[in-house]
C-alpha cells in the first residue's frame, strides 16, 4: 500500500489496547506457543533477530531455541521439514521472510502439503502454517515486493489468509495455527507498524467470514490486506462527495465467503475489487468473476478491478508509486461506476 497511515477503523470494543500489527502477530504466536507444545517457529533470523520486521522479537527468550529456530537460508527445506513435522504430530509455523520467496517453496506447498490429506484418502494431515509477506512501495524492487497470494489460492488443499488489521491478524493467525490444514498467512510489510485496537483476552476469528469494514449503499469496494486501508480512505473521499461506499474485506481467500461479497454487490449494484497482486490472472480476477457471476442480475455496471499494474515492481519511487492502487484511483473508479467520472 502506498499510505501506511493509521486509519480509524469502525470497530470499537471495551478493554481494548492499541497495538501494532507486528505486535498482534507476536502475541498470537506467543499465545499459541504457550498453549500447545506442538507449536514451533522456524525461519531465517526468527530467533535473536526477531525477523527483519521484528515480528518475532522476544519469543526465543521465552520459548528457547528448540521452539524458535534460526534456519539456514533454505526456504524449500524448512517448508519441507515443517511439513514432515506437521504430518507427525507438530504444528509448525514456517516463516518465509518475503512473499517473493514463495517461488522457492511452491513444490513443498502445492505438490506436497496441499495434497497429502487428499492423496492419502484423509489419513494423513498437515497442520502447517506458513507466514509470509506481501506488498510494494517499500523501495525494495522487483524481487522483494510481490503479492503472490493468487498462486497459493489456486491450489486446492491450501487455505489462504490476508488479515488487514491487528485485531484480524491476531485472531486469524491463532485460527491458522489450530487449523488441521496447511495455511498460508500473508502480512503486508507496510502494515506492521499500523496500530489498531486488540482486546486483552483470548479470541480467534473463523475462516471464511468476510468482514464489512464500513457499511455503505452506493458502491461496494472489496479489498484485501492493506488495500482495506486504501479502500477506507477512498470511502472517506467518496463520502465527501456524497457517495456511500461499503468496504468488504474477505479476510480469507480460501475459504472464500462468497455470500457476504455477493450480498453486498447485490445491495449496491456496483463493485470495485482492490488487491495488491498484479491485475492479470490475480486474486482480483476470481473475486470479480465470482461477483459478476452470482450478482449478475443485480449489477448496474461492470465489476471493476483496481489491482497492481502488470509490471515487475520498479525500484524508482516515481515509477513504483504508480503501480499500486491508491485512494484516489479507487475513488475515481468508484465514481466512474456511478457515472460521476
Amino acid at each position, binding site marked *: 500500500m502506498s499510505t501506511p497511515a493509521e486509519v480509524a477503523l469502525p470497530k470499537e470494543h471495551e478493554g481494548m489496547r492499541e497495538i501494532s500489527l507486528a505486535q498482534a502477530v507476536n502475541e498470537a504466536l506467543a499465545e499459541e506457543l504457550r498453549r500447545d507444545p*506442538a507449536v*514451533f517457529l522456524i525461519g531465517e533470523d526468527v530467533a535473536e533477530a526477531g525477523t527483519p520486521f521484528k515480528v518475532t522479537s522476544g519469543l526465543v527468550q521465552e520459548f528457547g531455541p*528448540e521452539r524458535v529456530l534460526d*534456519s*539456514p537460508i*533454505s526456504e*524449500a*527445506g*524448512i*517448508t*519441507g*521439514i*515443517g*511439513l*514432515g*513435522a*506437521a*504430518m*507427525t*504430530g*507438530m504444528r*509448525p509455523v514456517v516463516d518465509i521472510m518475503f512473499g517473493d520467496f514463495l517461488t522457492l517453496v511452491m*513444490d*513443498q506447498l502445492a*505438490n*506436497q502439503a496441499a495434497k*497429502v*490429506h*487428499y*492423496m*492419502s*484418502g*484423509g*489419513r*494423513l*494431515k498437515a*497442520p502447517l502454517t506458513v507466514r509470509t509477506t506481501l506488498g510494494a512501495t517499500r523501495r525494495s524492487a522487483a524481487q522483494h515486493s510481490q503479492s503472490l497470494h493468487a498462486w497459493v489460492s489456486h491450489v*486446492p*488443499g491450501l*487455505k489462504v489468509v490476508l488479515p488487514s488489521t491487528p485485531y484480524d491478524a491476531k485472531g486469524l493467525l491463532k485460527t491458522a495455527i489450530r*487449523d*488441521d*490444514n496447511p495455511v498460508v498467512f500473508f502480512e503486508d510489510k507496510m502494515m506492521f507498524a499500523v496500530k489498531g485496537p486488540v482486546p486483552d483476552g483470548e479470541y480467534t476469528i473463523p475462516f471464511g467470514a468476510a468482514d464489512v469494514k464500513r457499511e455503505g449503499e452506493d458502491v461496494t469496494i472489496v479489498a484485501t490486506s492493506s488495500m482495506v486501508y486504501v479502500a477506507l480512505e477512498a470511502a472517506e473521499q467518496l463520502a465527501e462527495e456524497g457517495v456511500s461506499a461499503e468496504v468488504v474485506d474477505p479476510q480469507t481467500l480460501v475459504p472464500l465467503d462468497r455470500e457476504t461479497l455477493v450480498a453486498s454487490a447485490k445491495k449496491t449494484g456496483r463493485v470495485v475489487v482492490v488487491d495488491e497482486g498484479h491485475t492479470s490472472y490475480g486474486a482480483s480476477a476470481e473475486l470479480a468473476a465470482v461477483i459478476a457471476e452470482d450478482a449478475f442480475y443485480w449489477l448496474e455496471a461492470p465489476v471493476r478491478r483496481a489491482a497492481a499494474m502488470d509490471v515487475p515492481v520498479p525500484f524508482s519511487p516515481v515509477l513504483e508509486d504508480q503501480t499500486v492502487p491508491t485512494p484516489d484511483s479507487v475513488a475515481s473508479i468508484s465514481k466512474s461506476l456511478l457515472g460521476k467520472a
Partner: protein
Amino acid sequence: MATEAVPAPAVGAELALRMYEQMQRIRAFEERVDQLYRSAKMPGLAHLYVGQEAVAVGVCEALRRDDFITSTHRGHGHCLAKGAAVERMFCELLGKEEGYCRGKGGSMHIADHEHGNLGANAIVGGSTGIATGAAFSAKARGSDQVAACFFGEGALGQGVLYEVMNMAALWTLPVVYVCENNSYNEYTHYSETTAGGLAERAAAFGIPHEELDGQDVRAVYAAASRAVERARRGEGPSFLVCETYRYYGHHVGDVDRAYYRSKEEEEQWKAERDPLHILRAWIVAEGLADEAALEQTKASVEAEVAAGAEHALAAPFPDPSEVGEHVYAG
C-alpha cells in the same frame, strides 16, 4: 567418514526367513502388478521394485513399526516392507475404496500411516523434506523414533535434498537417507547426470555414510541397523548408498529398453546378483532352512498375492461423491 563399526546384530534364522518372505512378497506383488497392467486391468502406470527388494527389506527390518519411512514413485517395495497388507495395496493400485488411500493416491502416492509410511511421492526428491521433518518431530517430541528416507540416485539432482541434509546434520536429526542406486534416472545412466561421488554428497555436510551392496539383504540390514541405532541414540543422520538394479523397465510400459541398456547387463544382474538368490543360498548354506521350506514360503506368498489381486479386482470403487471429500481436514 563411515558410520561407526558398531557390531551389527547378527541375522538369525527367524529374521532371515522373515526377510526372505518379505522379499518374495514384494517380488510376487510386483510381478502381479505387471500382469495387471499388461492385461489392462490397472489404470495408469506403475514403477516396479523387482530387483531392489533387499534394500527396502533390509532397511525396514532395522526399523520399528512406529518409525517413519518416506518413499518414492517406485514405492510398492517400501510399503510392503514396512508392513502393509497386499490386499489393501492392490485395492489402492486399482483405485478401489478399500485401498490405503481410498483409491485417491494410487501407485505413486500409496501411504500407510498405521505402519509409519508417510507416503510414496511422485516428485523426485519430494519426500526428503517430509522425512527430515518427521525426524525433527521425533526429536522435538522426545520420542526415539527414526525416519528412513528412500530415494533413487536421480534425487541427487534435486536441490532440496542438500538443504535438508544440511539441517539434519546441524540439528542431529534421527534420519537415515537411503539412496538406491539402480544406475538409471528413467532412461539415462546416472553417470551422465551425476558428477563426483554419491556418498560425497552427504560427506559435504559431515554426515556419516556407507556404500554397500544393495543386493545382499544382510549387508543392507547391518548398515541400516548401525545407522538406525545411531539415530536412535541421538547421534544424528546417516547416508547409505545401496548399489542395486531394477529388472523391469522404468515403468511397466517401458519394455523396449535396448537403446539405454543392454540385455546382457540385465541378464547379468539377474543371474549373478539377484537378492533372493543370494539370501536363499545363504540360508540354505547356513542350514537355517531347506529348499523345500523356502519353496513353501514362496508358494504361500504367491497365493496371498493372487488372492489379494482377485479381491481387489472384485472390490468396489469409491462412491463418486468422494471426489469432493478430503480436500481439507477437520
